[in-house]
């Protein structure tokens, strides 16, 4: 059972655009050269030698002068759009604006909303809302269990018919192995990836950060990494036994990486994601008890961080996911232990990883682009490519742009970003999602406008 159109796209019209003399980088198509790229009616219609194509009347043109980089737009398999019920944190409009500003052409929304996305009527209404409001394509993962309570399966087959990309109880683990096994078995009927938030609550309960040297110094109850890794190992074994397809969300530690590697070595159908914050920050960043550093799973040790980077490089971890988790200012302006878990991430993901991993030479840009687009295929969706005839899912980036993530100026409704105050390099200037213009950094683009040709 495969839904016909699992992604919902918004109302923006198909774009006509000329990108002149840009560096085109698509690791899957093995392209990394300067080109002119023409988009007509939302599709890539021409790839030509640099500075050879002329703008057409009425169509916008941007001249990269060889200084801008065009990549397939990113795919984020893990965001919280907070609607319905928590629109004071985010909604489809603001959340997908944030996604577009970060160069994402598509995101997958989590179901831990209020009410929980666990029924077909609610899924239909959300897809209708996305068709009206979304700036990038949105897919939905309804809950595995009703109300995320872990006791009864949702009507997974009906949800699939209505366009569910897969299922998840994200925010909570499926604590009962017996319950999860039933979902894995039912997957044979309905299909759809089961995305798993791995955490043994009997080990993590009461904890607010990683257990270790920093938690003991701060007197904050710790969450041991085995709370995650034992569940990854358990569920990998279940998936192997049932020959089911599972995706491990936001891995945070070396032991979980080992469990995923072992499952892949046995040929189990597992995949995994990692967040920019787990790749770039550690428990040391929690010392100041800044609540923007409080997330689930928590920031871990530098050894764990290095293992995650190595796993991303080796492919044990398949893709980057932001786990974009907006919270209102007053909800985070409380003592650390009281604060809700989560950081926003859509608008900083690329820049933070480019600054923190690519510029120092830890991974190369092509690999980063590959891992930031790989999520689509994991959820049985087409991966964006830069080739003639393909729909325009594109991100145009100024790799030299310097900016500081701040307290204000976000497209997201919330400002709880763990990278706030950091100097970042690389900024997304333009994003096309499903052929439509999704983001346009007016100020940043100004110097690249090919003004005299537009409408000439």
């Amino acid at each position: 059972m495969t839904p016909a159109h699992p992604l919902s796209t918004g109302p923006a019209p198909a774009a006509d655009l000329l990108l002149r003399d840009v560096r085109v980088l698509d690791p899957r198509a093995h392209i990394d050269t300067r080109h002119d790229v023409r988009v007509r009616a939302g599709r890539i219609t021409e790839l030509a030698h640099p500075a050879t194509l002329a703008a057409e009347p009425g169509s916008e043109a941007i001249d990269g002068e060889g200084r801008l980089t065009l990549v397939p737009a990113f795919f984020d398999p893990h965001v919280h759009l907070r609607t319905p019920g928590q629109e004071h944190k985010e909604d489809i409009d603001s959340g997908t604006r944030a996604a577009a500003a970060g160069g994402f052409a598509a995101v997958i929304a989590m179901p831990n909303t209020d009410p929980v996305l666990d029924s077909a009527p609610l899924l239909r209404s959300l897809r209708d809302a996305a068709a009206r409001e979304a700036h990038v394509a949105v897919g939905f993962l309804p809950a595995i269990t009703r109300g995320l309570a872990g006791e009864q399966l949702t009507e997974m087959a009906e949800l699939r018919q209505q366009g569910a990309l897969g299922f998840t109880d994200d925010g909570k683990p499926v604590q009962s192995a017996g319950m999860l096994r039933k979902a894995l078995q039912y997957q044979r009927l309905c299909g759809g990836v089961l995305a798993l938030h791995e955490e043994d609550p009997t080990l993590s309960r009461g904890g607010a950060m990683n257990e270790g040297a920093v938690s003991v110094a701060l007197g904050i109850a710790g969450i041991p990494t085995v709370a995650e890794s034992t569940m990854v190992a358990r569920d990998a074994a279940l998936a192997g036994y049932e020959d089911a397809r599972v995706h491990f969300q936001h891995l945070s530690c070396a032991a979980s990486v080992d469990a995923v590697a072992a499952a892949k070595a046995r040929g189990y159908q597992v995949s995994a994601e990692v967040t920019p914050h787990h790749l770039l920050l550690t428990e040391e960043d929690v010392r100041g008890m800044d609540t923007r550093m409080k997330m689930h799973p928590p920031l871990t040790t530098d050894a764990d961080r290095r293992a995650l980077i190595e796993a991303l490089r080796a492919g044990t971890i398949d893709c980057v996911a932001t786990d974009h988790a907006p919270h209102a200012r007053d909800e985070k302006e409380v003592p650390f232990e009281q604060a809700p878990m989560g950081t926003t991430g859509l608008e900083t993901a690329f820049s933070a990883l480019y600054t923190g991993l690519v510029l120092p030479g830890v991974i190369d840009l092509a690999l980063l682009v590959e891992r930031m687009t790989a999520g689509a295929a994991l959820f049985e969706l087409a991966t964006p490519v830069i080739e003639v005839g393909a729909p325009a899912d594109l991100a145009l980036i100024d790799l030299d742009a310097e900016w500081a993530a701040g307290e204000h100026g976000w497209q997201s409704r919330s400002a709880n970003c763990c990278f706030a105050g950091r100097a970042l390099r690389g900024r997304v200037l333009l994003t096309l999602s499903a052929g439509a213009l999704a983001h346009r950094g007016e100020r940043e683009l100004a110097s690249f406008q090919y003004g005299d040709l537009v409408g000439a």
Partner: protein
Amino acid sequence: MNHLLSIEDLDRAAIERIVSQAERFAEVSHRDIKKVPALRGRMVLNLFYEASTRTRSSFELAAKRLSADVVNFAASGSSVEKGESLKDTVLTLSAHRPDAIVLRTPWAGASELVSKWCSAAIVNAGDGKHEHPTQALLDVYTLRQRLGSIDGASIWIVGDVAHSRVARSNILAFQRMGASVTVAGPPTLVPRSIEQLGCEVRYTLDELPGADIVYALRMQRERMNDVWVPSLREYATWYQINARRLQPHQILMHPGPVNRGLELSGEVVDSPQAVITAQVEAGVVVRMAVLYELLAGARPQQASGSVRADVSALDATAGQAAEPQPLAGGRLA
């Protein structure tokens, strides 16, 4: 010194300065009129989100002996129970222009947070399981009265280390004053990585006779909402400080209130080796010294202008990182 948030912020010289000041104030406690005018016209606000009798009354007494005005604000029965946030409560109470806020909460880091929201001097009177710095200072004071110095002394802290802010502050303070610290308790109540604070770890009391000072922690029944030990009886069998375990040369301390028959046997509580009541007495003079240190030199709170405006100005500066920080990258090189 603008605030007292954590022992971590104090070096040995600062601890000695406060303890010496407390010694000078001890003399006042023996006068007929136990009051000095040092903080006349200043206001101290006690803001307590957790039950406390001795710490709160000790701060109240300390402020009154310095002639400060004292307002007590307990979270129960107040707007806090009606859902007001910590920040809103602090901003509201700041309208009374306290010079110092003495704060106890069940949340680590709350005092530091409050210090960013208002212009009063903040005294941490216990923030969750993080720290209780005035307790550590009064313990250092008590030991100095008894021993002169604790340089080179061996101090054992015994019991529920995991849930104890007293343990965390005292591990730091005792080490800063030159003592070596060993923590001992059931493995379920000794947090992983505690040795990173510089102390030794033992799970039995076999080597306890080598200690100069035995500091027993309270078994916090109110925090035992999970099964941490098989039974309190078994805990007492293995970890109770009693006449059989306490050596004649050892000094016995406890932050109170004592569970007689649990962490301490009745006989050792009443023995001359116990300095538990001296600790309580020290509480007042040490807290006088802390308030004096924070307020005596400082400018009084102005009675004009708007607090809200002051606070938002503070907020704005806190929000703007002067220089953006570099991102991880370099760490991998």
